């Protein structure tokens, strides 16, 4: 089936679902859109996964970083310049007033990702549901995407990797970054950082479908002010910050 046709059918299904939902009651649906897909179902453009990070609640902890490292199996070799980091805590201090803030920074899962534009082989790609990934099977390790990323979100695997997680293949000579825990999202779970933040951290992170009006993230973004990092580039990031 051609992508267009599939997408069209998808829209049709969505229209049917929304119509059914509207028929019952506002906000009540027969089928929950944010539900996990079945394994044979492809990711669809009906969804746009995103994060809202409320940095007024973000404290000095780094449980999101440790959770990500544990979930995805990226660990350092004690060489900070070349060790990978999928997510990092960034400290900000206002130059004039000294007002200090801290926030987690990772791949922002842009709608128009510069890394995808520059990748010569198309290894860097954006999945239909908005998750930006590296297809390591076709990555030749040119690092042009690292040059293009406005957020310094990507790491180049500088040395041989062993002991990978079965859900998170990683290997020397390719580029990697936050996958929004795509393997968990496909199972209907939230990313590891969000889970950890809400369990052990400041409860600063919300994960959800930016297209789904009933999702908490949508509700919050509707009601509260939020910003995108480097909004001037108009990349329409999937990760939004509150309190920046």
């Amino acid at each position: 089936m051609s992508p267009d046709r599939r997408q069209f059918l998808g829209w049709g299904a969505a229209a049917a679902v929304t119509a059914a939902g509207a028929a019952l009651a506002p906000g009540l649906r027969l089928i929950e859109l944010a539900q996990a897909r079945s394994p044979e179902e492809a990711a669809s453009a009906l969804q746009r996964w995103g994060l809202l990070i409320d940095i007024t609640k973000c404290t000095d902890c780094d449980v999101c970083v440790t959770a990500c490292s544990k979930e995805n199996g990226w660990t350092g070799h004690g060489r900070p310049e070349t060790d990978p980091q999928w997510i990092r805590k960034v400290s900000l201090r206002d130059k004039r007033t000294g007002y200090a803030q801290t926030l987690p920074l990772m791949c922002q899962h842009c709608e128009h990702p510069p890394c995808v534009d520059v990748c010569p082989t198309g290894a860097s790609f954006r999945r239909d549901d908005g998750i930006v990934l590296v297809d390591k099977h076709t990555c030749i390790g040119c690092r042009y995407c690292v040059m293009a990323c406005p957020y310094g979100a990507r790491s180049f695997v500088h040395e041989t990797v062993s002991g990978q997680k079965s859900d998170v293949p990683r290997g020397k000579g390719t580029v990697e970054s936050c996958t929004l825990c795509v393997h968990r999202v496909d199972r209907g779970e939230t990313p590891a950082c969000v889970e950890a933040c809400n369990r052990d951290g400041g409860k600063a992170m919300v994960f959800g479908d930016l297209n789904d009006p009933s999702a908490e993230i949508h509700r919050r973004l509707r009601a509260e002010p939020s910003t995108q990092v480097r909004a001037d580039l108009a990349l329409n990031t999937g990760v939004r910050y509150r309190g920046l």
Partner: protein
Amino acid sequence: MARVHYREIEGDSRGFYALLGALGALILAGLGASWYMEHNGHYVTGMSNRIVWGMPHVFAIFLIVAASGVLNVASIASVFGRELYKPLARLSGLLALTLLAGGLAVLVLDLGRPERLIVAMTHYNVKSIFAWNIFLYTGFYAIVAVYLWTMFERRMNDYNKPAGLFAFVWRLILTTGTGSIFGFLVAREPYSSALLAPMFIIMSFSFGLAIFVLVLMAACNWTGRALGDVVLNRLRNLLGVFVATVLYFVAIHHLTNLYVARQHDVERFFLWEGGIYTALFWFVQVLTGGVLPLALLFGTTSRRALAAAAVCVILGGLAQLYVLVIGGQAYPQLMFPEKEVSSSFFDGVVAGYAPSLPELALGVGGVALALALTAVALKVLPFLPRSLADGDVDSAAA
């Protein structure tokens, strides 16, 4: 019009084999360095997650830029009809191919997964400037090969002009592509300028001609061929104009940035506080690679001064690319205006970089590969005229 007579170089002297041996050793060292880097991973180099393109890229881009520029000599002969340059056209075409081969070899051997190069041919992202370049480079090979054929084969001579014109246009697009690799990076303040494409073109004129002058002088000197002042003085003036134009573009690039408030910090970094990058900019790029060659080219008429000026242009060019490629990455990306930024991932600070020996060996290996290919080609096919003495080229030019 007198015909130009071309002749292969003898290529059986002890000196020739010593040259090939030395270049071969450098090529082997480059291959060894590449194997070492690929085997261990890039952590053994000076490159990091912040400086992902290092010394190999400086050399590779220099060679690729010079490759397109060195073809200029041939273009001047066939596109702009200057007969004086005609005897030089074959060498010009040859160097274009060999320098590009050297540059691409370095680029490919530095990839994270060089064994997957075939993927770059089978999977193609049409929006990627890199992908355009793969097409532009392979096309350049084919076009220059045909162009050389129209020079060598008498029956093809009639097609020399259209082939030359096509090659000239192609090489302009090619260098535009190389410059745009950086020019289109909107997220990095030191790049992100449409000016980079034309600047790379004029840089290619300058670097390419400097290499051409040196190779021509060496080849004529070592094979005992006459090389008259008429040719050399023409090349001298041309190189002077190119060097001055490069300086002009560099000045405009920085002046534009100085005018834009958003770019003030970038300029402060490159022109004033950038440590090694500032030093390289002023002392090597501008003084050694710009001012000094101009003085040498226009102040004297000696051959040594011309050769010295060409060497200076090459050094300055390497420094210019070092400042642009590595300095441009070392400068922290602006994500949070008006904030001091810090993290474990070196946000908000100037990234450190020290070129490692393997990187240097790989880069120099690429240069050696280009020169070795040139030397062998000169022996196999008649690229060089038998004489470039004043009387011979004058009559050819008449």
